[in-house]
């Protein structure tokens, strides 16, 4: 009697069909694609009137720089911003999620969001995933209780500090902070120290590079200074621009005239 195998349709959920093939290919030497990480130098410091957050702008996929000017300072609330290091998808999504939760919380309480609220939401989410959500954050903001700065780690622990650095360039940045930080600096002094710290990361850490982004948050409001410093300009530009081909002729054919509606309704046209 022949054995018949009945092909049942898949019940749903993850299909493991390709796992064996992937494992085989890996054993033959093919490389799995790498996660996009923000190698990163991110810093924060508390100054006289509030907090200053700083970040570099390089995103890496393994050894390749996949984005030379990405944004690592994420919006959480009008008075709270968060720098993210680690896997870019994780930092983006966890900050977006907490930002939505904070907005709903603002509607429910009719009050400005507090930094400790954002901190608790982030820490409980990250702890629940036991470090698998690879997001290391520097969270800063000013609320009714004053300026706050926190470092949040992927396993869900937090530190409250007057100055903090995270990411692969954090050692370089911390060296600058330990040497130049003072309590109660003015905004100009604070910006100078933050830029120096990010530049230390940009020039001495391979995972960080390109430009310096800043965000200054005070009781009065915030200043998002995108690309405040650009210490790595493109050095090979040609003043007249580059022309790689000359255009010989051009012909534009509209495809819309070839469509005849035979049956049914025509699509709405804007």
């Amino acid at each position, binding site marked *: 009697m022949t054995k018949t195998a009945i092909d049942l349709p898949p019940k749903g959920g993850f299909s493991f069909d390709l796992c064996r093939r992937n494992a085989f290919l890996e054993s033959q030497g093919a490389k799995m694609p790498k996660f996009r990480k923000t190698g990163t130098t991110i810093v924060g410091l508390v100054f006289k009137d509030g907090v200053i957050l700083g970040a570099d702008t390089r995103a890496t996929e393994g050894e390749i720089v996949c984005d030379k000017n990405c944004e690592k300072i994420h919006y959480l609330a009008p008075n709270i911003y968060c720098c993210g290091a680690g896997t870019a998808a994780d930092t983006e999504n966890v900050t977006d999620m907490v930002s939505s939760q904070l907005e709903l919380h603002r509607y429910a309480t009719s009050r400005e969001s507090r930094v400790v609220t954002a901190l608790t939401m982030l820490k409980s989410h990250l702890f629940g995933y036991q470090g698998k959500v690879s997001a290391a954050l520097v969270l800063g903001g000013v609320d009714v209780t004053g300026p706050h700065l926190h470092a949040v780690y992927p396993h869900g*622990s937090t530190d409250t500090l007057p100055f903090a650095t995270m990411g692969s360039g954090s050692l370089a940045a911390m060296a600058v902070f330990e040497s130049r930080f003072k309590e109660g600096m003015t905004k100009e002094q604070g910006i100078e120290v933050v830029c120096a710290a990010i530049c230390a990361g940009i020039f001495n850490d391979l*995972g960080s590079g390109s430009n310096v982004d800043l965000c200054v948050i005070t009781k009065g409001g915030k200043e998002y200074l995108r690309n405040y410093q650009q210490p790595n300009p493109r050095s090979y530009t040609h003043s007249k621009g580059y022309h790689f081909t000359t255009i010989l002729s051009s012909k534009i054919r509209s495809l819309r005239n070839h469509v005849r509606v035979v049956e049914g309704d025509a699509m709405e046209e804007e």
Partner: protein
Amino acid sequence: MEPMAGGWMSAAHSMGTTILAVEYDEGVILGADSRTTTGVYVANRASDKITQLTDNVYICRSGSAADTQVVSDYVRYFLNQHTIQLGKEATVKTAANLVKELAYQNKSFLQAGMIVAGWDKYDGGSVYGIPLGGTLLRLPFSSGGSGSSYLYGFLDQAWRPNMSKDEAERFVVKSIALAIARDGASGGVVRTVTVNAHGVERNFFAGDKLPLFHEEISPGRNPLLA
């Protein structure tokens, strides 16, 4: 030279630590160092490992920073509710038992060694040690963390019951300083919290205020200050 590539970044944030709590004649004194490490990098050189649970009960945390922070947060929340429902101040024994319950029931997920200490009117000053598996042990003094290994002999020899407050504080500071001297994962400053019938007092001993031991050189001028 290979870039660090964030390998140490994904190491769990742990508190190498030395923590200690002792009973003295009027209450308890809790002491801890202030170093939090991620692998071999000192992530925070001035952390506060002595956390408040209620007005009269404090907890020293060692092990995984995330685990102990979450446990303390839960217990603080439970004790808050309990105090409202009870109508009286919570006892140290209750606080310690709540911590033990979380530590024991989740033993396979947690890496947390904690010491709960405080003062209440029924038992006076009490110290409860809650090491890794979730045991609850009431003791006259208890130590924990990686630096505590270097203190067992010293504590056994030097601890006496009914010390005065100054004596007991000097005892705690000396112990933590001894552990910092020998344990790489402990360092920074020594923080102490004294809890008795009159209330709570926090103290802070920077590096230059700590006693010096065999072959240690006095700190001299701080190069970071102008």
